């Protein structure tokens, strides 16, 4: 199939970017990123500069790939990262617009590559259980109901890609932050420092320049792992009860 690609070109975070138009011949079996590989190979052949985009595992789990495809983070398929998107979902003659995740807290570094280190700093603010190596009791001494383990797993399956931020009109990181808060606060191991955790993580999230929750649920709709907005409600509950509790000020 013949495709027209409009791809974002930007030298670095200091300069302005613009779209570049390229034609490409693709096959239905290719993945979206393989299609970009082919484009880059063609550009290199002409001694040009390939487009920078981030990718690594190409099986939808590392969270490295990003990009907004025709206005949607990770493209048109539900529950699918860009690397798992295949060209059989496009047809001959299509025009595809490819741009980086857009958010103040995710500055563009080059072309389609953005800086998502704010997410690391939110986790560093408290997204962990304070247990050092060697301090653990026997695994079965902490019994966890199957449903609770399942819900914690669902929240913990966030891949930290940032699509939720890119999808949100306010570029809010509520879904990402709440997924971690909820993963840990569901489990008895994480509940001990729950109040402290939620306050610190929310404070860091605000400091990084993410916007407020827009209540549009765009984050859940675009999340390639189906992380539910229920986590946001859980986090809000945790947060308010932490703010009013006197035990942890």
């Amino acid at each position, binding site marked *: 199939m013949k495709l027209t690609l409009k791809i974002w070109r930007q030298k670095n975070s200091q300069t302005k970017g613009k779209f570049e138009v390229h034609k490409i011949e693709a096959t239905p079996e290719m993945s979206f990123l393989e299609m970009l590989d082919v484009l880059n190979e063609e550009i290199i052949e002409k001694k040009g500069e390939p487009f920078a985009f981030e990718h690594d595992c190409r*099986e*939808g789990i590392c*969270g490295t790939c990003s990009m907004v495809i025709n206005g949607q983070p990770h493209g048109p398929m539900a529950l699918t990262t860009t690397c798992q998107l295949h060209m059989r979902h496009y047809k001959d003659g299509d025009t595809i617009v490819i741009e980086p995740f857009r958010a103040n807290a995710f500055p563009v570094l080059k072309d389609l590559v953005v800086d998502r280190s704010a997410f690391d700093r939110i*986790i560093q603010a408290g997204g962990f259980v304070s247990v050092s190596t060697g301090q653990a009791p026997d695994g079965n001494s*902490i*019994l966890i109901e199957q449903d609770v383990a399942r819900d914690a*797993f669902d929240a913990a399956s966030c891949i930290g890609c940032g699509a939720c931020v890119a999808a949100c009109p306010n570029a809010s990181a509520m879904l990402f932050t709440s997924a971690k808060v909820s993963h840990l606060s569901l489990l008895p191991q994480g509940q001990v420092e729950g109040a402290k955790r939620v306050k610190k993580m929310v404070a860091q999230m605000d400091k990084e320049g993410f916007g407020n929750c827009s209540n549009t649920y765009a984050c859940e709709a675009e999340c390639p792992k189906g992380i539910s907005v229920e986590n946001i409600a859980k986090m809000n509950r945790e947060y308010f009860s932490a703010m009013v509790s006197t035990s942890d000020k």
Partner: protein
Amino acid sequence: MIKLDAKIPEGHISEKWMKYKSSMDLVAPNNKRKLEVIVVGTGLAGASASASLAELGYKVKTFTFHDSPRRAHSIAAQGGINAAKNYRNDGDSVHRLFYDTVKGGDYRSREANVHRLAEVSANIIDQCVAQGVPFAREYGGTLDNRSFGGVQVSRTFYARGQTGQQLLIGAYQALSRQVSLGNVEMYNRHEMLDVVKVDGKARGIIARNLLTGELESFAAHCVVIASGGYGNVYYLSTNAMNSNVSAAWRAARRGALMANPCFCQIHPTCIPVSGTYQSKLTLMSESLRNDGRVWVPKKMEDVEAVRSGKLKPIDIAEEDRDYYLERKYPAFGNLVPRDVASRAAKEVCDEGRGVNQSGLAVYLDFYDAILRYGRAEAFSSGLDPEDYATVKKLGTKVIEAKYGNLFEIYEKITGDDPYRTPMRIYPAIHYTMGGLWVDYNLETTVPGLFAIGEANFSDHGANRLGASALMQGLADGYFVLPYTIGTFLSKDIRTPAFSKDLPEFKKTKQEVEDRLNQLLNIKGERSVESFHRELGLILWDYCGMSRNAEGLKKGRELLRALKKEFYSNVFVPGELKEFNPELEKATKVADFFELGELMIVDALDRNESCGGHFREESQTEDNEAKRDDENYAYVAAWQWNDEGDPVLFKEPLVFDNVKLKTRSYK
């Protein structure tokens, strides 16, 4: 001349580690604060080591080329992690895990290391649970287990099909905690390009800041390599695109030895290659073999009919199917170890019975499992276990709960629905057992240079058992290195911090810069990617699932010729001091050329078949692998030599506790 000393402690195998731990030199807390450690890599091994060392009080600098430590490829491990907990009361024990691992590795691993691994395995589960890793649970709230290839007990702990992700996030969170406490300085987007030695000891690294392209020096009292395996030398593998050998290979070029590089694991259940633009292969977890049955048609006419799409596999009658693993290996059936399952798949495809266009695929079928689970569910919920529709629906639900995410991945990639039609799978490069030679302390032959996780060679011999990679990575990082690193650092408590302005740093940095400029200045006609693809094919064809002397020699010649062309005709766009992914690729491929050649040399030296290494010259009458313990019961540790052939050093393997047997899964 290097003398290999594995430094295995005295005493009975079950007491070695315990006694050694209690008698080794320690570093006092006040001194730990003065000692600096560099850790390269943030997968399970690197992240867990960084966190644990920082908790102990060492000053840690941790490096990853990713934008975040959470992206390391450990994240993609699906199936699970082994531990000798015996929660199932099925006769598991430390000894049995030790035995299974030595046997599974085809008797090419070091007993003492493997026993230690089995000993600490149970602690890993406890640690991960305490961190909040959401392992699968039973109805009563206890931890659930499943069984994995090559063993007869259920000792694999799992978190759906995303165990690696959950364990890595646990380690990443522990690391993040230490970053927040100021105990770890985290360097994202930094790629290690060389080791710096001062007076013969590893005292720092040169890393390239991938955003600015600047080369930066970092000094410490010792260096830990946790950079993973080198499967991407084959270009197509289940590894992440950016996984590479460079950190380990640069260590090898600075005097560390590379052990058993030809031991590569080919995983039997991957999605087959579909096109020439393919950039990577995707694994379907081995856990699927618990419930899936592997088969190909018996009759050639059926093979041709399914290939052309005239016949659907579900329409092939039971008696016309060859469940070849169950037929050949009745004791283990579909759960034979990976190397055995891979070779068996190759064999039936070589016979012409492969089930896709390219003839390189076999079926993995869940139909029977769906019905079996469905009947059980129907029975226990008081429904009719003979009603096909109900049974099928209930059974599908059970399979979905167990493997839902894997089935989804499969459908996304292939467009086929594995609940309705069998999966098509084929073996692919997945893991590398070989790696930097380390002693019992996990120290390489360069003092102060340690290697952990997949980057070292120590625990899996010639074949790794399923769910053991996660176990080893975390064992090394949480429970082994934090102790053994003290054997080196305890001698350094009076050594002040090293300055990165030492002449050794300046010299090494200049060498790295020259190397990168050399690649940029070739300005030839071919892309890095095209060289990598061709290199991968050479290795797959001549040093892949099946090897022989003639092919290996030819492969080496082809590789050398291609390497020569690389250095005269590669085109690397852009500049040194900018964000330049093509230059990153070029340095990786340059190192893969040298490692690839070493793999061939190693495979040629080892004229026996063991584990993942199958030499056609060494097989039994019924074409099973034939080991040669008399001549090859050694670790082959290689010293790279720019001028001539690599130099071989042998560490003889002594088996006092496991009797060497022909590995049989029949």
